[in-house]
């Protein structure tokens, strides 16, 4: 009997530990983060013995660290979200050439939708490009099994292997029977053995290319024979086939079961079909695909993100001169972007199989013109979030001065929302720092500001800061230091000194780093004090050359809330200036519009709104005590 209800990412951590993983490293990113956190938790409790686990400064650092550990013979696991693979692509492509020794698995979580990402890129495509095998689970249970196989294949063939789940696999839960404790496997061959093969010279790369070309067909054969590309058939002599990968396979199976049940209810015969799930998109199982396609006339391919399986089938059919019509994203037969789902699959399968029983789904919702609308709830900065004060201070300091405000990746991307409206650009991790420099070169009359979080600062901003100093760009960096990686669930980073292994390191001082890199003007400020924040922002913005203002106040998720603020109902005019200025979710207008009220369960008493009210109607106990003094 399975025992523990585990989220996909938690289960994958157990699977890796069971496989004897010795070193686990990654950089946080939704939907991948819980894997490293689970390993850390199990290490801390003593259940995962002999494992080293860390949040590295970024994905490139993580994968390079793991490359070293693997070359010494340790089983290693890398984790990131899909865009993290871009950051780690440099080491990955070369690592596949020099090869590995201890099993090296890359857990890369894709995010169709996208739900919390910048792109809808497809890691299966990346695997093809990097010539690295990839496994694509359709359920958390399957991912659990794939993780173990990935380590074995990696080690047997000396290749990195990618396991690529998507959000709905990572964040879906099921019951798992997991071991009480695990032990990391010892190093192969007593550690690192010197060999010229580990050094990637052009001649070595040429030779390695042949090794890759030789191993991929073997891996393909193993995938063809393995259990990750299951085929099922309904009825006799089908001419229609359904191909699916990842969570789309679960949706397709669900939709087919619903269609079947509806047919049974009305006494219709369920049409014949054959279904293949491709769990090993690269190297593509050509032979298994050909066996599946035998006697089929049409196939419909369900997959999210890119048309990887569709391309595989078109190529297979073409190379074998099959009269097979392949339908999918390319001919508009399936969704070309966003997530698939049971509802969509049901509709498309009913049309494809020409099967339309009555009453497949009977919904309570009716199309009524007069239906009320639910309130909009876009993601916003939390009540009491110090970023709110930082954005507001910079905007107030700028006044009417022309400026461009470069944002970055993290909670503070939400600074773009009304009413703060404090972000003009957002591209990728650390990009704001360098983009601001580009703006300053061509539009020198604008104040060019780059907002960056503390974790992002260490992950990808340092080279950009050095560039500004070196090339003398007139920009201001606004470092929003909330002492955590907030958006992904409060992970530590080099600025906090907290590690996943336990012992604390000396926190790296952001101002010290900026100074060491040659930024001459650096100012620190408490973002929850408007005057202080504005004065600091002005000083940095007015400085000719690279400058920085460091807003320091911990994330509200890290600190115990203080007493909520109090609004004096007699003084409050109901002007709503506070709501329009900072839009704190703890504040709302009374139904009669006479007064602003505070939701005491949301307000954490930060007191920033005290500085915003033009009538002095708000007071904060924390201010009276002088608790939140300036830095």
């Amino acid at each position: 009997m399975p025992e523990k209800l585990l989220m996909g990412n938690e289960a994958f951590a157990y699977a890796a530990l069971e496989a004897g993983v010795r070193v686990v490293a990654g950089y946080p990113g939704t939907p991948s983060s819980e894997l490293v956190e689970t390993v850390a938790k199990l290490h801390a409790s003593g259940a995962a013995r002999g494992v080293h686990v860390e949040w590295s400064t970024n994905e490139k650092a993580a994968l390079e660290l793991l490359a070293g550990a693997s070359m010494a013979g340790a089983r290693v696991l890398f984790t990131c979200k899909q865009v993290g693979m871009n950051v780690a692509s440099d080491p990955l492509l070369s690592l596949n050439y020099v090869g590995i020794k201890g099993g090296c698995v890359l857990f890369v979580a894709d995010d169709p939708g996208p739900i919390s990402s910048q792109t809808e890129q497809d890691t299966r495509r990346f695997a093809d490009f990097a010539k690295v095998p990839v496994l694509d689970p359709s359920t958390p249970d399957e991912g659990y099994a794939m993780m173990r196989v990935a380590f074995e294949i990696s080690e047997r063939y000396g290749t990195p292997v990618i396991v690529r789940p998507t959000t709905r696999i990572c964040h879906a839960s099921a019951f798992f029977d997991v071991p009480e404790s695990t032990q990391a496997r010892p190093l192969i061959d007593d550690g690192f053995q010197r060999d010229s093969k580990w050094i990637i010279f052009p001649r070595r790369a040429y030779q390695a290319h042949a090794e890759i070309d030789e191993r991929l067909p073997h891996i393909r054969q193993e995938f063809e024979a393995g259990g990750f590309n299951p085929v099922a058939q309904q009825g006799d002599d089908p001419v229609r086939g359904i191909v699916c990968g990842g969570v789309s396979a679960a949706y397709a199976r669900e939709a087919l079961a619903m269609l079947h049940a509806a047919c049974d209810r009305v006494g219709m015969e369920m049409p014949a079909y054959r279904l293949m799930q491709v769990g090993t998109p690269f190297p593509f199982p050509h032979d298994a695909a050909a066996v599946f396609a035998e006697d089929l006339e049409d196939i419909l391919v369900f997959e999210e993100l890119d048309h990887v399986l569709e391309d595989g089938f078109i190529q297979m059919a073409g190379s074998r001169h099959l009269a097979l019509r392949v339908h999918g994203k390319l001919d508009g037969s399936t969704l070309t972007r966003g997530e698939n789902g049971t509802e969509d699959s049901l509709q498309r399968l009913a049309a494809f199989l020409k099967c339309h029983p009555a009453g497949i789904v009977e919904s309570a919702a009716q199309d009524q013109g007069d239906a009320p609308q639910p309130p909009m709830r876009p993601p916003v900065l939390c009540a009491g979030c110090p970023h709110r004060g930082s954005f507001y201070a910079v905007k107030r300091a700028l006044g009417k001065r022309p400026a461009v405000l470069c944002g970055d990746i993290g909670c503070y991307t939400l600074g773009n929302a009304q009413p703060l409206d404090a972000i003009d650009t957002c591209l990728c991790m650390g990009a704001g720092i360098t983009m601001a420099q580009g703006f300053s070169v061509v539009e020198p009359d604008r104040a060019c500001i780059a907002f960056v979080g503390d974790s992002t600062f260490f992950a990808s901003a340092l080279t950009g800061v050095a560039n500004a100093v070196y090339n003398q760009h007139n920009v201001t960096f606004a470092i929003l230091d909330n002492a955590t990686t907030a958006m992904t669930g409060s992970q530590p980073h080099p600025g906090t000194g907290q590690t996943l292994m336990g012992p604390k390191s000396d926190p790296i001082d952001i101002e010290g780093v900026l100074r060491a890199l040659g930024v001459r003007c650096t100012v620190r400020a408490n973002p929850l004090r408007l005057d202080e924040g504005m004065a600091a922002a002005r000083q940095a913005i007015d400085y000719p050359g690279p400058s920085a203002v460091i807003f320091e106040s911990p994330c509200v998720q890290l600190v115990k809330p203080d007493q909520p603020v109090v609004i004096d109902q007699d003084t409050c005019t109901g002007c709503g200036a506070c709501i329009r200025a900072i839009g704190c979710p703890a504040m709302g207008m009374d139904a009669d519009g006479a007064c602003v009220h505070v939701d005491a369960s949301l307000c954490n008493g930060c007191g920033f709104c005290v500085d915003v009210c033009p009538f002095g109607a708000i007071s904060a106990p924390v201010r009276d005590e002088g608790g939140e003094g300036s830095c």
Partner: protein
Amino acid sequence: MLNVLIAGVGGQGSVLAAKILAQAALKHGWQVRTAETIGMAQRGGNVTSHVRMGDAGECVNAPLVAKGTADVIIALEPGEGLRALPYLVKDGLMVCATTPIPSVMADLSGETYRTEPIIEYLASTTAHFCAVDDAAICDKAGSRKVLNVAMLAVAVQLSAGVDYGLRGAIGIDELKEALKNCVKERFIALNCESVDIAVEALRKA
């Protein structure tokens, strides 16, 4: 198949409610899958938890409940009940907490968020609807934190001996037993008490 959707706003405890249901289903030996929308949605956005239970011994494929197939919707907030309505099956059960969570965006756009028309609309559209005075239940229990468990109890109680909703598949005692495996020890008594308060409130209504 039993499909349950728990709809609320970040921080209301929909994820824990899903866990408790899954734990209760496990005791029956059913296959269970749950899924949550987490990530950016946590920052004040709407959160839904999906629980799918193969109560007839069938296998659960998709992690998410499809639209028009939820047997029960547990709405922890009226606006979120309305947002989740398309998921409810025609003869399904919706239990809906009446206390609104304000939306700062509504204030900014000058619209007032009124829940009465929403509750009325939900009551008129659904086959089985129960508006729950969650504030009274939570006040009596002495904590807002029990909202999720109290609403679960309402759904379980209203499903007893009927062929809709949870169809009597899970009992109040099973719910209490399951929550013991899911909440911290010092909160077990409080949560069990809130189950009783919720059941008692239904009896009086």
